[in-house]
Every structure is written in C-alpha cells, then in structure tokens.
C-alpha cells in the first residue's frame, strides 16, 4: 500500500475558516515563523503555529466577526491593537499575542462580560464545557470591579421587584433550551443559522445593552420560529445559553468516551461524534472533519436518536406458529432453530427457490453482504432484493447504461464550485438537509438554480434563496421535460461538440440528435402535456447549457415512475451534451434516500448482481465466490420484491428473511403486500420494532441500532464511512452476528469474529473495493470507491479522464405516458414525499420528540381544488385511488398546483401506500409512488380499512407474558 497522507483529525478550533488561496505568506507570531495561505487571519496563523489567541465570537466554521474584542494583538509597525480574527496576514508581519497592553485590555473586556453574567458555574450545565469560563481563566481575570446593578441575569432586581431586562428560559424546542440570562451576545448562533444552516431563523433584536438573541419575530419562540432544529446554533454557542437538554439532564460527556460514527438516517452520511458518559449517549455532535457534512447536522442525526432506547423496542427473540397467535418470547437458540427448520422445511417441500431475503439499506455494508451471502451460499438461490428496488434502482440502471457505473459522479464538496444547479424531483432541504444547506450556501454566493418539481419546495423560494426557474411539471411527465430541455440545447446549438467528439460515442450522439431535434419534443409541443410554460423551459435549458459549471441533483421524484430509468438516462444525456461531467462543480448526482442505499446496492443485494454490480450470469465473477465459499452458485437471477410477493400470492414463494425494512408500510399497494405476506409460511422480521411487516411474521429477531455495532455505510457520494460501536447491543447481538447465527443454524459454518473480517472478504472479492480496509478508513476518515490499486485513496470524482464504460452512450428517451391516468372518477394526481422532521416510514422518528413538528400525515391541496370540494383547512378527507383509500386531514396551500395533491408517508395509521398502485419502472420495477390518480372527498374520520387495519395490527402485536 502506498503511503497515505494522514489528515489532522483533531477538534482544534482555528478561529476562522481556512483560506483557499494557493499563494503562501510567511509571518512571525511571538517569534515563531509560520507560513499560511494568503487571506488567512492572524488568529488562524497563530493557531497554525500552535498559539491560541483568546477568543469568544470566533470559531472556524463561521466567517470572522470581530465583536468580542478579546482576540486583540499587537503588530509591529501598526497603531493600536487590531482584532486578530479580522486582520489578514501580510508577508513579514510580526505579531505579538501576549503583550502587557493586550493582556490588560483582555482583562478589562472580560471583566465587562462577567459583570453581566451569573457566577453559578458549579451548577451550570456548561460547567467544564464553557468557552467563557475557559477565557476568563486564560486572561487571568481575578476580580470584577463593577457592581451588577442593571443585569440581564437576575430575575428580580436588587430591590426585589421583577427585572424587566430578565427573559425566562425558552424551553419550547424539545431538544435544547435557550437561556438568555447566560447570553454574551457574541452572535455565533445567529451567524451559524445564517452561514451554515441558511435558515435565517435567528437575529439580534434591539441594540446596545438591550441586544438579545431572538428566534423569529417578537411573537415567536424557538418552536414557532423558522428554526429547523439543526443544532448549529447550539454547537456554536460558547456558553450554556443554547444547550442540549440531554446535557442539562445527564451532565457533560466524558471526553475520553467519544467515538466518531456515521448517522443512520439519509444518504448524506454525516459524520458524528457520539459523546458518552459511561454507556449512556449524552449527545451527537457533527464532526468537523466529516467530508460529507463538514461539521453540520440536521434535526434527525443531531437529536432524533432516542428511538434506540424507546420502550417499544423489542429486545428478545419471539416466535409463533401462525400469525393469528400472540408472540412468544424464546431464547435465541429456540428462535434460530425454529427459523432454520422452517426455512429448510419449506425448501424441501416447495423447492430451492421458495425462500429468499430482503436486505436493508439501513444496515451496514457488512450486514448486507452477509444477508445476500446467506441467500446465495446457504439458500443456494439468488432471491435477494433490497429496498433500493423501490427507490434508486433506476439510477443504477440508467447511469450504468450511459456512463458505466451505478453511482453519482461527484463528491458533495463539488457543489461549492457549481455555477448552475439543476434540481429535479428532489427536495434536499427536507430530505437531505445537510446537503441542502451546503447547496444553499453556494446559491447565496451567486450560483443559479433551476428546480423541476410539481411542488413549490423551499428551494424555489425561501430566505435569500430564489430559483431562477421553477418548472412545475405535471407528475409523470419527467421524460417529456428532460427531452424538451435536450431539444432546446440541440436545436439552439448549445451543446459541447468538442466534449462529445472526444468522450462519447459519436454515432449514437447523431442518432440521439436526430431523435431529440424532432419538433414533437420542443417545449412548445409538450407544453400542454407537461404544464411547463415553453418560454420558461427554454430559458432554463439555456442557463443549464451556458451558465458555467452545471450540476444536476435528482431524487426519487425522478426514479419512482414508470419511466424512472428513462429519466435517469435523459439526465445523463443532458450532462454529456453540455460537457458537464468529469470535473468539480458539475456531474449527475442522485441524492440517495437512505444511509446505505448505495452500499446495499454495491454489496450485491439485487437478484441479478453479485457485489460490485457483476451479473450472476458472469462465469468469472461467480467463480470468485464459488472458490471462496466452496459452493456452486445459481447462475440465474432470482426474484425481485414484487415478484416475490406475486409468487407468494400464487403459492410458490413461502419464506422470507426481511432485515431492517418495513415492506408493508413502505412498498406500494399495501393490500397486495399484505396478501403476499399472509400467504407465506415463514416470515422472519429482523428489526428494532414490531413494524407493520411484523404483523405478518412468524419469527421476530430483535435488531441492534447503529450505535451498537461496528461496520460501514456508503453514502450518496460513494463514500465509505465507519460506523462504530459506542455501546453494547441491548438485544444481545449486533445484526451481523444474528445473520451469522441464522446461517450457522442452517449449517453454514461461518466464523466471522468482527465486521472488519467481512470487509476483508468484500475487498478480496470485489474489484472496486480492493483497496478498502478498516485501517485505511480509520487513517483517512473515509474512502470513496472505487478504491483499488489505481486509486489507493479512493475516487472523489468519477469519469475524469474518460467514462468508466469507455465512451459515454447517448440513448433515446421516448416519452410514454404512464398507464396511471386521471379521469372523471380520479381527477387529481397524488405525489408523495418526505418532511424534514420525519424519516420514511417513521419507525425511528415517530419514536422521538420529532413528532412535535409532524404528528400526522397531511394532504396538501390547492385552494382551488379544495374549494370545489368544500374542503377547509384541517378537515378530514378521504383519499381514494383505484388501489385503495385512506383518510387524513387536509392542508390547503398553493405549494401544489391545481390538479396535484401531495402527502407524506411517515405514519402507519395513514398508510399513504394503500392508495399507490403497483405500476412500476419498465427496466427495474421501481414502483411508481410519485403518480397516482386520486379523488378527494370530505370525510368524517378514518376509513373502514384504517380501522380494520389497526385492529389487525393490535392483535398481531400481542406478546404472551414470558413463561416463569
């Protein structure tokens, strides 16, 4: 292995952000020479030399501000005592950080701060973790000469009457408190909210001595303000003013008991420091060296981890003969042998193909690898599928066909160099919040934005963000819009011929041009169909093609359609047409839904692909595993999830091991899923909770949370991040151990001692992972695949020299309308999505305080459509499609266009997927969640189906008291 450059991964705060300049400047600080990039502050240069200048308002993830006046220094040849945070370095500068003069000034400044600050350090929640305390120590403050007459911190004035300057604690946010009495008005929180998160929820109200931090306007508290509870302000606060409630309750974390791990929510894959006291998690703090999040977080990763200790969590294995019986708690041995015997029995009776597995995008790479290995090596078939089937399988197919790899082309840092950002069918500020913030930061710097979405998402317009073009298309017409964009680029001659000639297949380009230039693809011709004004679409196409570095980010609004794969291909075509591939700032970037969708796809979860996207028909790939595992592999692709369910209804598919996925709630057409599950004879659910699927299960294996195991997750930028065990599994075993025990109960004879051994096996057998090891990830922080001999430190950008498949391939994108059509009975189109505070089926977030923001799914409907139907805000409405119906409350908003309604799918008592249909992508069977023809009518409450469902669920969740 080549020598690796080991980065500095300490938590040291350099005070101001790093300069990107290539030009270096040498200066001296307290006699030490230091060389730093031009544009660096004196404070940061001093920190580089190992000298910490006292500071309060400065921190290195915020631009310098110069308000606290504590970081004063003297510079030879300059008058006065400049603030080191706002003074840039110059060549030959001689800085003195500790002269008599600045020492006196600092003491004086500190004395003033302390004169209006309570001296209750011993009982303060930030005791030991307070920069004000540290700085009082650092400047040697020994006395405060000022009498505290008018203060902000005494509830009662010295005379006993109420102090009008005192503001009580704001405890409205469930996760942190705002205690104005401890505030030193350094503005770090306000700046963090603006610069890092980009929400602009905080301000300094008033002025002078009356200056106070204020969330929202005068009538707001933190909860009612625009605050999204990302935690950036809490992290920035140097005192106990903004403090995690968990720290207030438990105490400060043990500095020696913290580990860097990876968030288990969305595909951004943020790195966090899990700060512990004993085996109790005190708080999750975003890690500044995490390359996906760069020290930022969202409400889910930062705060919503309480589900791991929720009372609903099941900690003992359970079995039952039939699903109408109550559950019986048993030992691990009994549960595993029950499961193993049933599965073997089913294979004996119904054949080798009668059982299968579903791997989870929520579990680690190592666990996923083992589950697919279970099916291929122990069940001896290829019946493995994963929840990526229902989200990003078209991405894998589309990008694989056009570019040669089933993954996004960039790293997240790339967005910092984009000039035009085209967002299609994605809502990053809700679903990928940390990346959304990074994107918004770039937009505030001047990048232009085009949003293609039926709904007016926050990106279209929110404080300091405004899309140059919003194309509010009718759900289901993605292909027509993307092809029309290409039509404009081709017919107006805006394509990059040099790039295409050099990098792509010229003949196929000619064929594509011939297709796309046809007048029927023009925006004018498709306007009636898509609902997008032609002129706006033309302007958007011109901006994308000519605005500089242009990047495409897309989400499930692209993939979850009957033509999902076609749209992905169309997007890939757009980037090739304009030469926006293979350098920073450009590219095609799928925003992955779940923490390890990328990884679960990489690990061979699909029925037709071995790890590393090698087809099971391929002799060469199969032989690698056959040699290592000592078995013969089935060369025929196995069943996809929908096929498994169809086969189950027909009676051919009988047993399923489902790890960490709730297919009943998350897969479309709930009634069909439940019929399939009910027809099986052995359903094994391996999960934290008795989820909806478990209502139809015979074996329940309690799972472990991401805090309780070692492993790796691979995020949307192909980055392999470590998941580290911070506490022992409450259920007794990590998930990889449980899969191994099940395999061994079926006679597999596996003997992995640690997930690192599984990763070694993955590296040995998978070319794109050849160079991956736990040692390397530990040393570098993370690695982006491909990581092998050619790229020992991984690959941040793909297709730099040329496309992975050789030459980029243009493919025609014919628009074929979905079979799901509106008509007199179902005149509206339903589309679905996520909200910031909740995550997918909500199994985790519903079991946290996040329900304060979103306690039920709501149906968004345009005022015009609502009025036609006599629906008012908050009314119960019946949402019916050809597949089924449910009831929920209405929210009247012009975020959706007339004719379109929208809801989230976080709550099982709504079950939006009762309504969605089983239409799916032509290439990959990814379900068409995003388009369902529906009718909305006023209703009195939950539907009959919802009531029946709840009764069934309640009965299915009964657990017998443990035998004495």
């Amino acid at each position, binding site marked *: 292995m080549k020598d690796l450059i080991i980065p500095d991964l300490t938590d040291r705060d350099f005070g101001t952000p790093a300069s990107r300049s290539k030009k270096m400047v040498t200066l001296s600080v307290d006699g030490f020479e230091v060389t730093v990039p031009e544009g660096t502050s004196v404070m940061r240069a001093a920190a580089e030399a190992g000298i910490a200048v006292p500071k309060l308002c400065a921190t290195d993830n915020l631009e310098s501000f110069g308000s606290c006046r504590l970081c004063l220094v003297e510079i030879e040849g300059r008058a006065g005592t400049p603030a080191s945070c706002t003074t840039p370095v110059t060549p030959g500068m001689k800085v003195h950080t500790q002269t008599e003069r600045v020492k006196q000034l600092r003491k004086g400044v500190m004395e003033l701060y302390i004169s209006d600050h309570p001296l209750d350090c011993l009982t303060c929640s930030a005791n030991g973790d307070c920069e004000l305390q540290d700085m009082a120590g650092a400047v040697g403050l020994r006395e405060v000469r000022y009498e505290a007459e008018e203060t902000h911190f005494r509830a009662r004035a010295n005379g006993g009457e109420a102090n009008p300057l005192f503001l009580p604690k704001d405890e409205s946010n469930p996760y942190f408190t705002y205690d104005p009495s401890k505030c030193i008005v350094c503005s770090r929180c306000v700046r963090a909210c603006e610069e890092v998160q980009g*929400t602009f929820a905080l301000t300094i109200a008033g002025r002078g001595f009356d200056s106070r931090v204020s969330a929202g306007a005068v009538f707001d508290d933190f909860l009612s303000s625009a605050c999204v509870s990302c935690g950036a302000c809490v992290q920035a606060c140097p005192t106990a003013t903004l403090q995690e409630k968990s720290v207030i309750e438990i105490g400060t974390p043990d500095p020696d008991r913290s580990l860097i791990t990876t968030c288990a929510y969305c595909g951004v894959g943020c790195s966090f420091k899990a700060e512990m006291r004993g085996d109790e998690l005190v708080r999750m703090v975003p890690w500044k060296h995490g390359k996906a999040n760069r020290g930022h977080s969202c409400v889910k990763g930062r705060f919503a981890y309480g589900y791991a200790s929720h009372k609903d969590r099941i900690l003992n294995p359970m079995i039952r003969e039939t699903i109408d019986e109550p559950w019986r708690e048993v030992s691990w041995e009994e549960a595993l042998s029950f499961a193993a015997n049933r599965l073997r029995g089913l294979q004996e009776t119904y054949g080798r193909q009668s059982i299968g597995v579903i791997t989870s995008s929520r579990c680690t790479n190592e666990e996923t690898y083992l589950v697919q290995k279970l099916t291929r090596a122990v069940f001896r078939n290829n019946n493995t599928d994963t929840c990526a089937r229902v989200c990003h399988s078209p991405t894998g197919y589309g990008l694989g066909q056009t570019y040669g790899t089933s993954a996004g082309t960039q790293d997240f840092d790339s967005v910092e160099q984009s000039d035009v950002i085209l967002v299609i069918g994605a809502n990053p500020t809700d679903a990928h919040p940390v990346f959304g913030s990074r994107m918004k930061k770039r937009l505030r710097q001047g990048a232009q934005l085009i949003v293609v979405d039926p709904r007016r998402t926050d990106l279209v317009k929110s404080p300091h963000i405004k899309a140059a073009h919003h194309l509010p298309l009718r759900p289901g017409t993605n292909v027509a819009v993307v092809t029309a964009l290409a039509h404009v680029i081709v017919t107006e001659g805006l394509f990059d011929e040099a790039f295409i000639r050099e990098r792509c297949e010229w003949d196929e380009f000619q064929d594509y041009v011939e297709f796309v230039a046809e007048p029927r693809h023009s925006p004018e011709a498709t306007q009636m169909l898509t609902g997008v004004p032609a002129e706006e679409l033309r302007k958007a196409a011109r901006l994308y093609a000519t605005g500089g570095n242009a990047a495409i980010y897309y989400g499930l609004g692209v993939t979850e359609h009957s033509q999902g794969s076609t749209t992905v291909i169309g997007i890939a075509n757009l980037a090739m047409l304009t030469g926006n591939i293979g350098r920073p700032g450009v590219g095609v970037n799928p925003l992955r839904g779940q923490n390890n969708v990328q990884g679960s796809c990489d690990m061979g979860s699909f029925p037709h692909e071995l790890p590393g996207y090698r087809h099971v028909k391929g002799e060469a790939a199969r032989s690698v595993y056959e040699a290592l595992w000592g078995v013969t592999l089935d060369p025929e692709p196995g069943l996809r999830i929908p096929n498994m369910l169809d086969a189950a209804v027909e009676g051919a598919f009988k047993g399923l091991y489902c790890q960490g996925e709730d297919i009943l709630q998350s897969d479309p057409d709930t009634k069909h899923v439940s019929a399939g599950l009910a027809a099986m004879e052995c359903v094994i659910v391996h999960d934290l909770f008795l989820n909806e699927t478990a209502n139809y299960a015979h074996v329940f294996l309690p799972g472990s949370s991401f805090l309780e195991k070692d492993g790796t997750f691979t995020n949307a930028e192909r980055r392999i991040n470590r998941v580290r065990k911070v506490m022992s599994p409450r259920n007794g075993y990590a998930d990889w151990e449980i899969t191994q025990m099940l395999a061994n109960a079926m006679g597999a004879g596996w003997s992995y001692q640690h997930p690192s051994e599984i990763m070694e096996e993955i590296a040995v057998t998978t070319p794109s992972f050849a160079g991956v090891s736990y040692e390397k990830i530990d040393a570098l922080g993370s690695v982006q695949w491909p990581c092998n001999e050619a790229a020992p430190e991984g690959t941040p950008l793909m297709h730099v020299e040329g496309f992975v498949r050789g030459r980029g391939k243009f493919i025609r994108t014919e628009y074929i309308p979905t079979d799901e059509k509106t008509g007199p009975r179902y005149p509206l189109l339903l589309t679905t999505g996520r909200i910031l505070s909740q995550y997918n089926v909500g199994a985790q977030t519903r079991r946290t305080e996040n329900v304060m923001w979103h306690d039920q799914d709501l149906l968004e409907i345009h005022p015009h459509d609502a009025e036609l139907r006599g629906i008012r805000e908050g009314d119960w409405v019946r949402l019916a499609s050809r597949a089924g119906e449910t009831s929920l409350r209405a929210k009247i908003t012009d975020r959706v266009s007339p004719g379109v309604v929208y809801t989230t799918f976080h709550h099982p008592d709504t079950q939006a997927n009762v309504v969605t249909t089983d239409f799916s992508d032509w290439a990959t069977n990814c379900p068409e969640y995003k388009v369902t023809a529906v009718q909305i009518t006023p209703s009195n409450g939950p539907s009959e189906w919802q009531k029946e469902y709840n009764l069934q669920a309640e009965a299915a969740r009964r657990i017998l008291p443990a035998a004495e």
Partner: protein
Amino acid sequence: MTLTSSPAQVSAVGARIAEIVAANAGREGPLLPILHEIQHEFGHVPEDAVQVIADGLNLGRAEVHGVISFYHDFRKAPAGRHVLKICRAEACQSMGSEALGARAREKLGLDWGETSADGRVTLEAIFCLGLCACAPAAMLDGELRARLDEAALDALLQEARA
C-alpha cells in the same frame, strides 16, 4: 417549522403593506424605506407586517424583526396625537433636564415611552437634539423647544395635552 400564511388570512392591512413592499422591492436597500412608509401610513409598524415584508424581500422574519427593533423610532403601536420628546443627553442633563423629565412624567402620569390612556400624548426620551448650546431642550411634534425651565415645560405640557 415554517409558518405559512394562506392567502385568505392576509388582512386588509396586510394587503396594503404588501403593496408598499412590492412598490419598493426593486430599490437598493429596500427594507428601511418600506418601514418608513409603513410607519408613515399606519403610525407604527404592525406585527403583521413582519411576515409580509419577509416574504416580499425574501428575508427571514427574524431578520426583519432585528432591523425594526434596532431603530427605536419604529413604533410597535401608534403614538398619541402629540409626541413630546425630552432630551436626556449629557449637555441637557447638566442643565437640569432630568428634573424636567421627572416633572413631565409626574404631571402627565406617564413613564418614558408611554402614551396617555386618552391617546392625546406620548412622552419619550431622546438623546441629543443638537441644541446643546440652548439646553435643556425638547421637541413637540417635530418642533424644537429650547432653554426650558419649569414654566416653559408646563406650557409645553399644556400644549401637548390639548
């Protein structure tokens, strides 16, 4: 996490404020002119204005609140018919303005910043009217008064209560 006001909820005041915002939105630094115009028209900056301005200028409502609260002259509620401002800056203090201020407060039965129940007069402190040479000074409805003594103040109060 975000309050979104539906169009139906926007009041008549809100509609007028939205007009003011729209008319000024194209200017450089539009927020202060908008606030002045609103205060001119309504006598104060109503709370409802905050969200309307924020939407119109694509700002956070916290930011708008930060600016409004920074300037003491943007009122939260309409002032009385007459506004009496008494200077409390250093030069006037040295010429006895604190005693005059106390007298005014007592006679009007108002503290600094308060408006009489009948809506006739608002009493406010001001810090320097630029009349230090003629201290103590005051301002009634924008008109400067200087070299005040008790009698002159009483006359002024009489005028203000009219």
